[in-house]
């Protein structure tokens, strides 16, 4: 029997590659049957550089049996355009979607888009492997947990699959030679889940329990990535890099022990309230160049509405400690959270400006599928664009025209506050 040709595709920005697809391939290839019967290729398309016609042409030259797409709110338009054309030309190709944009609302995507065959919900490693076995004729689709799918035009929903308890089951895509580290865009994941339950975020709601990759495997990944002299900076994808101090100490030992070429650790997500002098010393030892953090808003009512942790004094102190020690802090604010209004947003901006972080990022609320805000949007009185990227349109105290003005004001403030030093770019 010919091997099934499987293509895993991600449309990315700025030369990034998909860690998630690396996991899918690494896990699937653990299975001897899959190795015998499937050939899996990962393709990362640059969403800015390539148009849909180019992608379709590329795929037409490969003639795959199955295409899996990694779907996010920022790339779903391109994914849908590509799959609609592909399925029209090659109806025999099986189209599988996964990722946070589609997983929580799989049946909706299947009903609205006749060219999708299967949508995976939640973590995809085991589910995708079972799907490959199904396409090779050894597993019945009804038996695969964590999917919704179409049979004879009818949409079916199978039971959910719990998150993978033991992450050591998933091989490292770096150590298996599936992903090759590249400068600026290499991410390492040391755990899954989040200690927080912010209502605008997917992670805390669906993957609440912290599950850690084994320490020896993390150490090997760090050593592998930092062993590349051309990697000047890398990242961790963990929800909170400084989630526990004893764990941070271990990670820092691994990083500093492996860091022969002075590689910088950039833009790790942290909780600033947890930062003290000891943490800063650890960050320095790990060669942390920059961190990213909330608070998204400083308004107490809004923080309560979205279940966001924020302690202003500790946050301010954390920003000060980090900046004084040369670690750039990027703080984030979201426009349109329930409870905020135009001037409460201004208050948040003013508060952050007074803290003098290196950068303030302003973004508009995305009411993402699978989040509490999405599922309880009526309760919160939120109106949002159902089409990705699901931008907020109005909240009870934040009518559309005020949100629009806040965005325009923030754009102007962003340009002024975050202006780059002239000598660097002229």
């Amino acid at each position: 029997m010919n091997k099934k040709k499987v293509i895993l595709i991600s449309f990315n920005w700025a030369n990034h590659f998909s860690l998630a697809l690396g996991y899918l391939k690494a896990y699937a290839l653990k299975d001897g049957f899959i190795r015998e019967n499937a050939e899996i290729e990962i393709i990362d398309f640059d969403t800015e550089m390539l148009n849909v016609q180019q992608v379709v042409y590329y795929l037409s030259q490969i003639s795959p049996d199955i295409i899996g797409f990694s779907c996010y709110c920022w790339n779903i338009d391109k994914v849908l355009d590509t799959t609609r054309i592909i399925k029209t030309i090659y109806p025999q190709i099986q189209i599988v979607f996964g990722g946070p944009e589609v997983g929580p609302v799989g049946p909706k995507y299947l009903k609205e888009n006749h060219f999708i065959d299967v949508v995976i919900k939640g973590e995809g490693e085991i589910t995708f492997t079972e799907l490959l076995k199904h396409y090779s004729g050894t597993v019945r689709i009804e038996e695969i947990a964590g999917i919704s799918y179409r049979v004879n035009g009818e949409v079916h929903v199978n039971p959910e699959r719990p998150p993978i308890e033991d992450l050591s089951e998933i091989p490292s895509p770096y150590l298996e030679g599936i992903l090759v580290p590249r400068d600026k865009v290499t991410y390492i994941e040391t755990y899954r889940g989040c200690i927080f339950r912010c209502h605008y975020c997917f992670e805390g709601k669906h993957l609440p329990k912290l599950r850690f990759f084994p320490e020896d495997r993390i150490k090997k990944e760090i050593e592998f990535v930092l062993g590349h002299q051309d990697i000047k900076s890398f990242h961790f994808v963990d929800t909170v890099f400084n989630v526990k101090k004893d764990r941070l100490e271990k990670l820092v030992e691994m990083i500093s022990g492996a860091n022969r070429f002075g590689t910088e650790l950039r833009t790790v997500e942290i909780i600033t309230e947890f930062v003290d002098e000891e943490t800063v010393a650890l960050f320095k030892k790990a060669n942390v160049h920059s961190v990213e953090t909330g608070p998204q808003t400083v308004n107490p009512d809004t923080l309560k509405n979205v279940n966001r942790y924020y302690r202003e004094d500790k946050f301010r102190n954390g920003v000060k400690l980090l900046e004084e020690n040369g670690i750039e802090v990027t703080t984030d604010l979201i426009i349109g959270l329930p409870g905020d209004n135009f001037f409460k947003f201004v208050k948040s901006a003013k508060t952050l400006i007074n803290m003098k972080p290196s950068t303030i990022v302003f973004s508009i609320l995305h009411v993402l599928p699978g989040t509490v805000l999405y599922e309880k949007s009526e309760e919160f009185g939120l109106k949002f664009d159902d089409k990705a990227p699901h931008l907020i349109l109005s909240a009870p105290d934040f009518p559309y025209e005020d949100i629009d003005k806040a965005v325009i004001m923030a754009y102007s403030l962003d340009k002024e506050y975050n202006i780059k030093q002239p000598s660097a770019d002229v």
Partner: protein
Amino acid sequence: MLQYKEIFLGGRCNNNCLYCPANHKVSLPVDSNHIIASLDQDKEDNIFFYGGEPTLRNDFPEIISHARGSGYKRIKLLTNGRAFSDVRLLQQTVAVGCNIFEIKLWGSNPSLHDHMTQTQGSFWGTIKGLENLTGYPGDKFICIRIPICEENYSDMENTVVTALNFGVNRIILSIQDNKVPFQSLLPHIKNAANISIFNRTWIMIEGMPFCALQGLEEHIGEIYSGWNNIYERIFQHHKYCTDCIFGELCPGVEAKYLSRFGDKEFSPVLTNKHFNSIKALHE
């Protein structure tokens, strides 16, 4: 919203604006050493240079360079922009560290602008400077300040459109005199704000009391930057301010305006959906 340390670089100017404050016009040159000494610090991130026309100083690049060396992250310049019609001066200014610009534009056409500056050719000089500035590579922030007065208020919308054509980052409408009743200004201000927002550019209004700008609260410049201004102005409360919920936040109306027009057009604001949030901004 960003607070800037303000540094006066002397009153020398290549325009002769009708509304230029007398104390600016007759001011003596400010000594270079005095300026340099006032820059030394380690606390402030933002500094703002104004005049006169700062770019006319021979030591202007050295002053900017010193400011950058003193640790200021954001260096803003209030200018008429004419000097930047010479791209070499623009290049020099940016190279030494200044990339936030506030440029005054009095009108949408040469006859009006030159009349206000009392300087033939000043309009095209400013426009050429703006062209060079917007086309110059690298990160920069450009704000257009449109002073509003009796002579130019009916041209307000056109002037805003002229500014928008340069893709600027912010527009400020600044009430400059007290010869036009607010009720005559307001239709133009509302139109100008709508034009600017439609074109996705932030716009603010300075120098009008809160009660006159109901419905435009988001655009009241003083909510963000306070009432301190490089131009000395005297505001006072009138009898209706006593009952106004904004009474403590708003300094009232310019004294000269009240003596000219009285207080009949005003009425206290008794309710406003933004009041509590605006008040919280100043607590």
